[in-house]
């Protein structure tokens, strides 16, 4: 078997192996490209406010008060903790929600967070938040993608040779031209 045949086999099989991760990295790449104060690629963040019964003057907030605030806010998530941010501002943490309560007025500012289905998971992989073993797997994928590019380059021949050269050249020249313009 000549080297072209081996090159083809490598390109084909590495290509199959890379389909899943290329889709994951590609979709996540688009999402994280657009991170802004208005767009979080991994979480939905919903802010709202409402009024609850104020804490009686001179009274200290206790679990009964926290439970009543949560009930009035319709919050059923598991209670995690509570802390005073400043005199009169009590922050209550429950699963998926943070409530800042102005105890004197009963005003509550809520911030609900929810993982975006699938996007959270693929961003977790793409941004290598887990570190450890995933670092190695992602490195292997990076090497595989490079091999895919090299074996692809070596496949350029025959009647479509000029088209292959032109498109490959464009793939290099676009980022280089961009850097040349912006730097």
């Amino acid at each position: 078997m000549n080297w072209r045949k081996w090159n083809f086999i490598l390109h084909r099989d590495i290509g199959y192996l890379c389909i899943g991760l290329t889709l994951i990295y590609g979709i996540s790449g688009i999402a994280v490209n657009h991170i802004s104060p208005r767009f979080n690629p991994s979480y939905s963040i919903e802010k709202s406010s409402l009024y609850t019964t104020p804490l009686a003057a001179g009274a200290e907030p206790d679990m009964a008060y926290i439970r009543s605030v949560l009930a009035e806010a319709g919050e059923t998530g598991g209670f995690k903790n509570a802390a005073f941010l400043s005199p009169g501002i009590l922050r209550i943490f429950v699963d998926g929600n943070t409530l800042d309560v102005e105890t004197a007025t009963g005003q509550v500012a809520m911030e609900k967070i929810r993982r975006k289905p699938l996007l959270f998971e693929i961003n977790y992989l793409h941004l290598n938040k887990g570190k450890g073993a995933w670092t190695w797997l992602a490195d292997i994928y990076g090497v595989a993608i490079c091999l895919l590019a090299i074996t692809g380059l070596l496949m350029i021949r025959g009647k479509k040779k000029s088209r292959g050269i032109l498109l490959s050249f464009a793939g290099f020249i676009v980022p280089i031209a961009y850097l040349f313009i912006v730097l």
Partner: protein
Amino acid sequence: MKTSIAVVFCLIFFIASNVHSTEMQLGEPLTLDSVTAVSEINKHPEKYLGQRVLIEGLIIEVCAKRGCWVDIASDVPFEKIQVKVVDGEIVFPLEAKGRLARVEGIAEEINLTKEQAIEMARHRAEEQGTAFDPTTITGPVTSYRVKGLGAVIQ
């Protein structure tokens, strides 16, 4: 083929969905045993600057944009300290809010001119999607924080 793809995606979804549900170890393993109180660092920062410290407390705020900082409540009411990490080295999940953390890192001092302080506060407000009034900053600001190297979130 379609079934295989669906199974793979379900598996990824299942595994990643269970991330963060238990104790989380982020970054370098913790090496110190004795905890330095946040109030002690805030009160006598000169004793700790440049030193490796272990702090412990409730996470009251997390960077919503990149998970690159958290605020840890002090043992003294209404006080806190910021833990800043290098973007991407450690990513604090938003779900960490309201959980207890032990964080190890280097205590550092940040000196900002009035303009820099306004810019930083504006940036932070943008990240968190909160309102910011620049008139609240009236001069240069010196603050203390911990450059986070490793953390365990319970």
